[in-house]
């Protein structure tokens, strides 16, 4: 009678099995959470990286805008630029309509955060311009 009853061993094994199932279930929940988190992080990282590169890259935006302003078609337009830490203000009291088209075309086709814009028609060929871009 000193020997361990096989039935007790079977019961012990059943308890261990139940514990193992419980642990496995928890691990599967953890895995599902981790997978969900990875999917979310991947989507977030891709979107954020793309948007940040477009709207949050100060150096890139600044260099691109300054390059646009150096364009020969804008030389006659008396364009004033004021570069700040948070962005740039581009203005002209009077500029040619063609130069305006060229400048706005480049600004609107680029991904710049335009926070203020003011284009007033002065005459048939002249306009005034005020653009504020943030980065």
């Amino acid at each position, binding site marked *: *009678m*000193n*020997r361990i*009853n*096989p*039935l007790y*061993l*079977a019961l012990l*094994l*059943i308890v*261990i*099995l139940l514990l*193992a*199932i419980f*642990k*496995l279930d928890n*691990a*599967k929940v*953890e*895995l599902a959470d*981790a*997978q969900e*988190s*990875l999917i*979310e*992080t*991947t989507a*977030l*990282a*891709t*979107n*954020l*990286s793309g*948007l*940040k590169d*477009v*709207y*949050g890259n100060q150096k890139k935006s600044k260099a691109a805008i300054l390059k646009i302003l150096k364009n020969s078609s804008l030389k006659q337009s008396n364009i004033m630029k004021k570069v700040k830490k948070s962005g740039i203000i581009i203005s002209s009291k009077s500029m040619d309509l063609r130069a305006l088209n060229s400048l706005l075309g480049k600004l*609107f086709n680029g*991904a*710049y*955060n*335009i*926070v*203020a*814009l*003011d*284009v*007033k*028609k002065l005459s048939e060929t002249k306009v005034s311009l005020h653009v504020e871009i943030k980065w």
Partner: protein
Amino acid sequence: MKFNNKFKTIFLDTSANKLDSEEENNASILAATQGSIKKEKVNIILSPSLYWVKKLSLPVKYVREVKKLLPSIFEDTLPEGHYSYYVYKSGDDFFAFAYEDKAILDVLSMQGIAASNVANVYFAQSEFQNLEKAVKVSDTQSIYVKDELVILVPSTWVQESDDLDLSDMKFSKHNITLQQFGHIVDNSSLYKIGAILVVLIVLIAIEYFITLSKAEQIAQQNSELFEKYKLKSTMMQNRSMLKKYSYIHEKQTKLREYISYMLSLKLKKDEKLSLLSLKNKTLIVEFTGVKKNQDAHITKILQSKNIKYKSSYKNDTLHVEITL
């Protein structure tokens, strides 16, 4: 032979009465016990009434070979029931036993002895095979050896008998283990179930470790993403940044879209676009030379695109405000 004086010894017989503290010393089971046997560990010697025994001469050498044959050896002898078997070799003969665990446990229970208090269980056959004369095991019954078999007979059949003295027993090595639930499920089935359970546990354990490993790999990939895209340390910060940039993107897309609509308008003769302004997320567009109540060709496109706008008219000028 082994000395086992550590525990008290009881001769267990089906005719025995239940023990209680007062009757203990007078118990008909002739136990050499003093004090409470209910709580102490005891050795049990089974009366011949609790087992079947056969003395066999078989053309085999080893006990293990006989073990396989035991159920068939007793097949025709035993009444219906769940039996366990035991065999040992003595000289050239084998002594084979069949017994019902449950029947023995029931008798033990009737005696008030818990199965957990039973140290060892022996057969009277193995322990009293060298009796020289009859021994009285109860008021009415005695045991004696005939043809090397210990048998139980009414005391009236024997002329002379000694009292049973269990105080100085020298036990053989032939003891058995009673299966408490043997009548419900036999050991081989239990071992099979046990094996299946062990296999299941091993499989689940393997799956558990694989799952943990996968979760770890995914966590690693997650960390790598944080490093690769230089994300902030918490998802809350990152979500907040994404929200901020998504908002900017949405407003900038709308700004370009609405300006594109305005610039693509087919204006009438004398109508001019005189102002294009963005202030506080509101796009303001002014058209001069527009005749009163004749601005449908301008507002129509805004309506067709489901753009919410406000318009006013003053001095041939149509003033349109669109909130981004």
